[in-house]
Every structure is written in structure tokens, then in C-alpha cells.
């Protein structure tokens, strides 16, 4: 990789803390040992995304993938760590530059009904941002929206309609059109096809791939669906309890996962196949991020856990060119 990454995350962390309620504050004043409860949703994530690349981010609920996506999109401020945009720390940019950078990263959400204002017409939903940000003069807004709608495969005749008059797939297209209207370089797609029926999902995936080619977009594609991520992304990162446990080029990761959690996840994802199979699930459940296990967060469920795993957290290390994994096994049996 010679080109500078378009986005570079360094030790990005997000903590959510819950303030104590009245009763708890009172109890603490009386001497009870109660602290603010903090959830570390994302812990020290390093990730760089090259221009034009599609990085898939996979994990189960509560692993922090959406929080990470929101930090990248600028919706949530990180608690610690840096986010570099084209090599420059966002916090060190002038307000105008930061504004510009934020505009260049847009987000497409999971549920288009929840993310589209039901009382606005499509023309306003898609047209508002480019007009406000001065990308398009107001009198040309309608033509611009029409062109954007055509780009995502919607009939511009729908300009005057409201979100409820569309089907789920069409609504998702409106959400994509809204993101594209401010001419972004990066799209953060958070479960953007999860709520759609299979046949519609395929249409939207195809749309994402076509847009990528036409507009040379960069994607951070967040999904719990391994099949979708494998299909669309160049590299895949697998998250578990706030950390990336494996990061590798997609074909290599799916052919030969290294981390035991990645293996388990790939083994258990049902695939369309003629053969009937027996499931051999990993035991246990995802631990609560309120009280994460010591050492490697996966050790209570890991079939290869050693004493060291509960004592020391494995670092994400490069185990082969462009392949990163966070597991102690790579050191004992490693190359």
C-alpha cells in the first residue's frame, strides 16, 4: 500500500457511562460503594481504510460495530484515540476543513423508515443537505434531486411523495440517495440491507456495487450477515466485544480464518447447501460489555483456551502479510 489511507483509526475508543440515579447517589452518600457504570463499547481499534476500498465489519450484537461506524461517520465523538482523514487528525483541522471532512463521510442506516422524516417529501429529504451546504443552488435543487434519484434507480416522478408511500427497498434507495446528495467519498453502511427481503436485498447490494464503480466510493460496510460481507468487501474485520480480533483480505479470511472466534462464526453461519448438516455450536453466550472477561474476551467460550488467555490480552498482530489476528495461539504454534 503506497497511497495514504483515506481513513485511519488509531486506538479509537468509546465509553458510555451511565449516571447514577437519585437512589444510587443517595446510597453512595450513605457510604455504599457504587460507581458510575461504564460500558466500553469500542476499545482501542486500529484500522485504516484505503481509498476506494470496501472494508466489511462483522460481529454479533453488542460487539461495538455500530458504535465504531458512528464514530467514523462523525455522529458520535470518540472517548479516546484519533481519527485521521486523508492523513490529518480530525481534531487538528480548522473548523471549515473538519466540516468538509465530515460531509465527505456519510452514513446509510439500517431502518429506512426510522431514518427518513415521515413528514418530508422525497425532494426535501434528498435535497435539503446539498442546498444547506451550498453544493447546489436552491433553484436547481429539484433537478439535482431527480438526477440523484435516477442514480439509485428510483423514478424521479416520485419526488413529491412521502416515505410511507414507498416499499422497504425503495426507502433504502432514498436513504442512499440522501447520503449521495452531498457527494461523499466514504459511505458507512450500518446493516443497510439487513431489514430487506432476500430478493430486494440483492438489488440493493448490486446498487452499492454499481455506485462504488461509478463514483469510486469507499465503504465501511457493517453487517452481521457474513454472506453479504463476503460478497461485497475487499477486506473484512471481525469484532468481538469492542475489539477487532481478526482483519484480513476477505477471500483469505473466509477460506482460512485464524482466530478461534472467526472460525466459530464462519462455521456456524448457515449456508445454502444441498447437504444437511449437524450444528456443532460453540458454547456460551456473548459476555456483557459491562463486565468483560479478563485477558482475551473470548477465552470463556474458546475451545483452545490456555491459562495465559485469561491473564493477558492478546494484541492484534500481523501473522502474515496483510493478515492480522489477536490470539495467543499464533505465538505458541506460530510461524
Amino acid at each position, binding site marked *: 500500500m503506497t497511497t495514504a489511507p483515506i481513513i485511519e483509526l488509531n486506538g479509537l475508543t468509546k465509553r458510555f457511562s451511565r449516571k447514577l440515579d437519585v437512589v444510587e447517589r443517595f446510597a453512595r452518600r450513605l457510604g455504599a460503594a457504587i460507581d458510575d457504570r461504564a460500558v466500553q463499547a469500542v476499545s482501542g481499534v486500529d484500522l485504516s481504510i484505503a481509498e476506494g476500498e470496501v472494508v466489511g465489519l462483522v460481529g454479533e450484537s453488542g460487539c461495538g460495530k455500530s458504535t465504531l461506524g458512528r464514530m467514523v461517520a462523525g455522529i458520535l465523538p470518540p472517548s479516546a484515540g484519533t481519527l485521521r482523514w486523508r492523513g490529518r487528525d480530525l481534531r487538528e483541522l480548522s473548523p471549515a476543513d473538519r466540516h468538509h471532512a465530515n460531509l465527505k463521510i456519510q452514513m446509510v442506516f439500517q431502518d429506512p423508515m426510522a431514518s427518513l422524516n415521515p413528514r418530508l417529501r422525497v425532494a426535501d429529504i434528498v435535497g435539503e443537505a446539498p442546498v444547506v451546504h451550498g453544493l447546489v443552488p436552491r433553484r436547481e435543487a429539484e433537478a439535482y434531486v431527480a438526477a440523484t434519484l435516477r442514480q439509485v434507480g428510483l423514478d424521479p416522478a416520485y419526488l413529491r411523495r412521502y416515505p410511507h408511500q414507498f416499499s422497504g427497498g425503495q426507502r433504502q434507495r432514498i436513504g442512499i440517495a440522501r447520503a449521495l446528495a452531498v457527494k461523499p467519498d466514504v459511505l458507512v453502511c450500518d446493516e443497510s440491507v439487513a431489514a430487506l427481503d432476500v430478493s430486494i436485498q*440483492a*438489488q440493493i447490494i448490486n446498487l452499492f456495487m454499481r455506485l462504488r464503480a461509478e463514483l469510486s466510493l469507499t465503504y465501511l460496510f457493517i453487517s452481521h450477515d457474513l454472506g453479504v460481507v*463476503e460478497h461485497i468487501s475487499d477486506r473484512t474485520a471481525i469484532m468481538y466485544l469492542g475489539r477487532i480480533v481478526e482483519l484480513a483480505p476477505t477471500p483469505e479470511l473466509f477460506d482460512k480464518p485464524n482466530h478461534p472466534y472467526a472460525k466459530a*462464526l464462519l462455521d456456524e453461519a448457515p*449456508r445454502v447447501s444441498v447437504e444437511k448438516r449437524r450444528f456443532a455450536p460453540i458454547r456460551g453466550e456473548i459476555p456483557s460489555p459491562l463486565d468483560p472477561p479478563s485477558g482475551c474476551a473470548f477465552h470463556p467460550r474458546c475451545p483452545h483456551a490456555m491459562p495465559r488467555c485469561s491473564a493477558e490480552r492478546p494484541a492484534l498482530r500481523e501473522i502474515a502479510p496483510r493478515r492480522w489476528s489477536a490470539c495467543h495461539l499464533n505465538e505458541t504454534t506460530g510461524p
Partner: protein
Amino acid sequence: MTEPLLRVDGLKTHFLTRAGTVKAVDGVDLRLDRGEILGLVGESGSGKSVTGQSILGLVDPPGRVVGGRVLFRGEDLVGAGEKRLRAIRGRRIAMIFQDPMMTLNPVLSIGTQMVEAVQAHETVSRAEAWERSRRALARVGIASPDERLASYPHQFSGGMRQRVAIAIALLHSPDLIIADEPTTALDVTIQAQILFEVQKLCRETGTALIWVTHDLAVVSALADRVAVMYAGRVVETGTVAEIIGNPRHPYTRGLLESVPSRNRRGVPLRSIPGMTPSVLDLPEGCAFRPRCDRSTGACTAMPELMGDREDRAWRCWNPVGAEARGDAA
């Protein structure tokens, strides 16, 4: 041929709404043998869930079963009295819903609810009912069942709740379980655990299962046979190998090609154009006609089920692969 455990003949469930009659289920035929797992597959609005509810007489007004028969062990459940249905529900046919919070009462402990479920159908002592509940929880892989019986639903994770729902469904060793998208809301590793338990239990107890889902991948791993629904009708049925390996209905093929798969990475998916039609305003003849690339003039008439066997059939005038076989209609 022996009488199957369940035979659904021409089932029609319509919803009489102000906007018109919604034919959610419009002539569905199914058959299920003892111990068999049937995957009932379809997209939203295809009528798969309503079919499952109709079998148990659980359709709420304005919905009504307006035609057809549901023969369960030879007895027609359509038109059976509420008293008779209550005796069958839970005991002979159990249901598992997508959201276990809908099944479980949030203000009663799991033990209370399970004991109640046992005593609803059998006159047994509380102690014995408790013991049976304990065994049922252990059977679905719940550790320390005694403590768990004293817990309340909110103390369980989503996957655990679904296990409890399955344990309740198993209490009376029913002949048939209807499971409506029970793993859709769960994570992959938890889903695998539930599928593992269900597969094991069906093998051990000989319980037949109807697994209602939109997920072809789950069905292909779990089921023996598959029925694919579109706009209120079964458009194709067959064994998993037949449906996955040799789909005949263009919709089934379209569904399969819409799923991203290993060997087509990065290649555009062959999606089905258009969207699922509104059941209020179905096209005449085959409902899939407007989205189908094989439709001809013949498709304006509703195709009958055709095929080699009763349990290997499709509803299409121009089935996939007909050219090669020379059996085009």
C-alpha cells in the same frame, strides 16, 4: 400411502379489511409426516406466518379461514370448536414465536409459567409438574435449571428466552411444533446453538416440525423438505436437495440466486426485478408473472400444481429446465 400427520388442503385465510379482501393465504396444500422437518419459506407478505397460525386456529379478526381443511391425525381442525382446539394447542401441536417475550409472561417466574402449562393439559401434582419443567429446561441445554425456574423472563438473554420457549413447547412431547422465525432475531452463534438443540430434539422425540422462515440458508441446513410460498400460495415444494439443487419455479431460482454465495464473490447478484406484489391487488393468473423472465401468454391463467409426485411439485407453466427435459407445458 399412510395417512400423514398433518395434511393441509386448499387452505384459504382471508382478511376482510375496509380496503378490500386481503387473500393472505389463498389455497395452500401441505403435508407432513411424523418426525419430518418442513421448511416453509417466503418473503414478507407471502403468507407463511398466517399459514402457520391458521393451522392452530390462531388467526385474529378481521382474518378468517374461509376455505380448505387442516387434517391433523385425520381430524379437521378448521371448524373445530374452541374447546377442542384448546385441548390440542400446546399438547399435540405447539407453537414457537419469533419473539419469546410474546410467549412469556413478564410478571411470572419461568417455573410458575411452566407448571401452569403442564397442569393445563394434565392432572399432575405441582411437584411432578415442577420436575417435568426442570427436565425440559435441562433438555434444551439450560444449565442449573433449578435456579432458572425461579427466574423471571427479563433475567434471561434473548437466546436463553428462546430456549425456554422451546422447552415449554416440548413439555407435552407434542406431535408437531410450528416455529415461526424463532432464530431470526438471534445472533449467528446463538442461532447455531438453537438449531443444534432443535435438530437433536426432533430426532430424539420424533416430533414433526414446521419451520417458518425467510432464510433459505437455515432451511437448507435444517429441514427435510421445503415449501416455497409466494403471494399466498405454495409455488414449489420438494426435498431440500431438489429445491436447492434443482429449482423448477423461477421464483425459487431467483431467491437462490439472490443469496450471496462463495463462488460468485464480487459478481453482481442475479436479483429478481420489481417487488413483492400487494396482496390487495394481485395480478391475474400467476402472481409472479410481472417479475418473471419466463412468463408467456399462458401465465395469465393460474397454473395448477404440477410435478412428479405429490411432494415434488411446482406451480408454473414454464418451469426452469423444461427445455432440456422437453416437458414444457
